[in-house]
């Protein structure tokens, strides 16, 4: 944005002695790392899309899976994940405010905004743990896994009739249901091999994608904390610039950016 803007001479720009992009080495490398990381996440989300389109009829609807909200009963689709998204956007704002304060060499503001960013990150990781807990734990009713591995949903607590997966909601009851139930097993919650909400693949992708993102958030919090301690110690004040805050800031915004896509492709679409 501001700062010095040297005139660009295309003849000498790549001749050595200066950074042709007018950015420091460390920041360029952070950017290229983020590009490679973005490829990893894109690979995960694209493979999710592949499997989802391949099994489009029997893919669970995320809205019906993630319906819990703390201290509230009943179904609240989307609300919890919306709250998580809000927390992450908010921590992105506090991060960019810390970077801005660094440009003014305002140590106290950097400390304040970085502290809020760390708090936001920790709350987000905690929310994700809560979400995982409920997904692993499942519903009280559970579901039935037939002999061929198909997951069918109970019609009600009586557990004598069920719906086959698919858009048409075909109900099986009576003698037919009894014979199909005979060798089936009741399943509760989700892990890497069983998923009461439908295809196990859905659970696998949920654990891998949100887990990989959560790992990024966690390492982001750790990095932010290290830089935060350095800021308090006055390391960057002595150095004369706060570029390390900018670098961890790039990483933190990237984590927020990935969540924007996970939110859309896992929970909304």
């Amino acid at each position, binding site marked *: 944005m501001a700062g010095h803007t040297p005139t660009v001479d295309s003849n000498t720009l790549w001749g050595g002695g200066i950074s042709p*992009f007018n950015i420091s080495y460390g920041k360029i490398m952070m950017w290229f790392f983020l590009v490679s990381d973005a490829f990893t996440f*894109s690979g995960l989300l694209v493979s999710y899309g*592949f499997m989802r389109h391949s099994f489009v009829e029997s893919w669970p609807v995320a809205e019906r899976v993630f319906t819990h909200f703390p201290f509230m009963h009943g179904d609240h*689709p989307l609300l919890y994940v919306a709250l998580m998204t809000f927390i992450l956007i908010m921590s992105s704002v506090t991060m960019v405010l810390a970077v801005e304060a660094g*440009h003014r060499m305002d140590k106290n503001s950097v400390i304040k905004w970085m502290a809020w960013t760390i708090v936001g990150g920790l709350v987000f990781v905690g929310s994700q743990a809560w979400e995982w807990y409920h997904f692993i734990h499942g519903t009280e009713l559970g579901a039935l896994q037939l002999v061929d591995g198909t997951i069918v949903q109970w019609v009600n607590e009586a557990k004598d009739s069920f719906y086959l997966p698919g858009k048409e909601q075909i109900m099986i009851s009576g003698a037919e249901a009894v014979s199909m139930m005979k060798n089936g097993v009741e399943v509760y919650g989700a892990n890497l091999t069983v998923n009461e909400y439908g295809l196990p693949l859905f659970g696998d992708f949920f654990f891998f994608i949100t887990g990989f993102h959560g790992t990024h958030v966690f390492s982001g919090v750790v990095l932010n904390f290290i830089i935060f301690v350095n800021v308090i110690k006055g390391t960057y004040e002595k150095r004369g610039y706060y570029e390390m805050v900018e670098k961890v800031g790039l990483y933190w915004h*990237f984590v927020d*950016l990935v969540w924007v896509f996970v*939110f*859309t492709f896992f929970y909304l*679409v």
Partner: protein
Amino acid sequence: MDFDRTREYVQHHSEAEGKAQRKIIWVIFWVLLGITGVEVGLGLSWQSIGLAWAFVKWTFIILTLIKAYYIVAYYMHLKHEYKNFIFAVALPYLVLVAYLIVMMLTEAIYVHDIHGLI
């Protein structure tokens, strides 16, 4: 000798410039929050107001791309870097991901149709 030349490329700004920047930061925060609000509202209500799913789905995707643009351009500051650098970061990514998405859709639909035949 000082080998770290970061100092030469460090950006500083005055109190007045900072104030202008903070204003932009908060405006973009409200944009991001507003878009997320619209997404959640649409996700909760599209069935009851009778919208077509295809329309809702593409609205979600376009809104997501707008959000991503604002985060990368303003919060990550990419918009204000040299044009060469913007291309060095964005082009390889966009080209490969566009390719991946096309492959994913065509192949997944093919695999889906094969499932129906077995």
